[in-house]
């Protein structure tokens, strides 16, 4: 993980993502291997050194884990008092933090009097009190409703952007990764099966599990397929042509690629489904189109599209589309194997 980024760990429950996260501050001690944080090998530190190192790593949890017997202000002051800071310094730092997370007026309340979102804000303020370089978020939004989740994610983004804190986010929700993360690692059975930039992973998932996780997102492969199946036998079904899934990112999103290609190849197309959006400042488009014409016309169009930086998957017309998206040789078994080696970022290559 790079300093200053937000890194996501995603996978189903039991995949080992929380365990991996807890290895970072050694809440969980790995049976073998090394843990390097900011140039320090954590497993080699003695007790005191580890305690000092942990003050550089903030952590927030799904269930907040605030002190029920202490006020909001005392909760935020807690790590400062652990570090033996003086009274006046503690007070001013606590006020500053509560102001920053927007909870100044709740300073003297107890956690039981706060909503879930407010509790997580307190937890974030507490985690930031000792000015850590890293913030670990263990399913920090999983106990919150969608609106509160959005607010907390915005706060996490602020932590990253305004304070320059490196953030590691563990989640089982792809939407969380898409909203805040720069890089992501997908985990299954204790292993990282795929990792890379969020945009690439999201647009060009290589591992089966990544696709499944994406399918839980509303803009999913499953939807894609369901949509396709639904359209069998209608007007489209009687025309020659192929269904293509087009994915493009960056500048390509804004250029008139489709009409250029249509003109160049004297072809026609219909857009069946599509999204044009931005993931973490990177624009992307994902379209499902029907390209009309015989095999040669379609092949020409595909070549022209790929020339312009568009990734093209030819979808089978068969009904078994849920397995979908097979197609051209760029996503095949050997490619998936390669994907298991970390950091194979660019999925934009074409076959």
């Amino acid at each position: 993980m790079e300093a200053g980024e937000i890194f996501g760990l995603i996978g189903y429950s039991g995949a080992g993502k929380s365990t991996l996260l807890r290895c970072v501050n050694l809440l969980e001690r790995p049976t073998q291997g090394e843990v390097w944080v900011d140039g320090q090998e954590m497993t080699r530190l003695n007790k005191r050194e580890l305690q000092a190192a942990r003050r550089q790593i903030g952590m927030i949890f799904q269930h907040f884990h605030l002190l029920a017997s202490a006020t909001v202000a005392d909760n935020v002051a807690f790590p400062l008092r652990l570090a033996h800071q003086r009274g006046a310094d503690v007070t001013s730092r606590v006020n500053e933090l509560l102001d920053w997370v927007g909870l100044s007026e709740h300073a003297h309340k107890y956690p039981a009097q706060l909503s879930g979102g407010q509790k997580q804000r307190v937890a974030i303020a507490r985690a930031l009190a000792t000015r850590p370089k890293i913030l670990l978020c263990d399913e920090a939004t999983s106990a919150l409703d969608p609106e509160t989740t959005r607010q907390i994610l915005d706060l996490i983004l602020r932590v990253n952007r305004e304070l320059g804190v490196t953030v590691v986010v563990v989640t089982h929700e792809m939407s969380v990764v898409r909203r805040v993360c720069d890089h992501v690692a997908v985990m299954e059975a204790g292993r990282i099966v795929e990792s890379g930039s969020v945009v690439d992973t999201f647009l060009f998932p290589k591992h089966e599990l990544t696709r499944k996780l994406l399918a839980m997102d509303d803009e999913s492969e499953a939807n894609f397929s369901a949509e396709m199946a639904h359209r069998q036998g209608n007007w489209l079904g009687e025309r020659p042509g192929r269904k293509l899934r087009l994915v493009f990112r960056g500048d390509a999103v804004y250029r008139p690629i489709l009409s250029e290609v249509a003109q160049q190849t004297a072809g026609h197309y219909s857009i069946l489904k599509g999204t044009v959006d931005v993931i973490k400042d990177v624009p992307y488009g994902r379209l499902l189109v029907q390209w009309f014409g015989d095999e040669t016309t379609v092949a020409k169009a595909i070549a022209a599209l790929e020339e312009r930086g568009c990734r093209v998957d030819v979808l089978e017309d068969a009904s078994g589309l849920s397995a979908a998206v097979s197609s051209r040789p760029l996503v095949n078994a050997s490619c998936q194997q390669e994907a298991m080696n970390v950091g194979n970022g660019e999925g934009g290559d074409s076959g």
Partner: protein
Amino acid sequence: MSDLVWPDILQATWQTLYMVGVSTLFATALGLPMGVFLVLFSTRHLMERRAAYQVLAVIVNIVRSVPFIILLIAIIPLTEWIVGTSIGVNAAIVPLTVGAAPFYARVAETALREVESGVLEAAQAMGASVWQIVWRVLLPEARPGLIAGVTITAVTLVSYSAMSGVIGGGGLGDLAVRYGYERFETGVMLVTTAILVVIVQCMQMLGDALVKHYARRS
């Protein structure tokens, strides 16, 4: 009921309050650390030590399983060594404390276990040492339960103290047994018992009020 008895009753009331008060204090002071260690030493806790946990648990269980009247007599040598005598109110405080400390240890252990492990973990993640966690997390978070435990211990000690008459400890219970039970003075028995009921009632109310005060936050 003769008039002569009233001063005795008054004196016995003070003796009971004194014995129960002092032995509750000592039993808590001794039992709380035992409870803390029972928790810390237990499996998957901050200082997991199986052997130490077993030793402590066995000691606690032995003392708790010995009937109080036997304990009272069995530790007379210890009482003499500490207080200098084996008779009287002060001598009664030693067996009362010894008997109640393991009891409070178990009550405290239960209260301390109620503290969410995640909160302890959060403190660990913030770089807290084990003792910082005990002082700043475990004890404050378990405070309502610990206070409720003190109340239970004190009430239990009221009935234990009735038996301390055996070694001349005095107190209301002793008076009730000697006058009421052995001499068939029903009046004395009723009055002393009534006072005991009032004392227990007051202690319980005080304890509940304290628990409520500290628990309103959670």
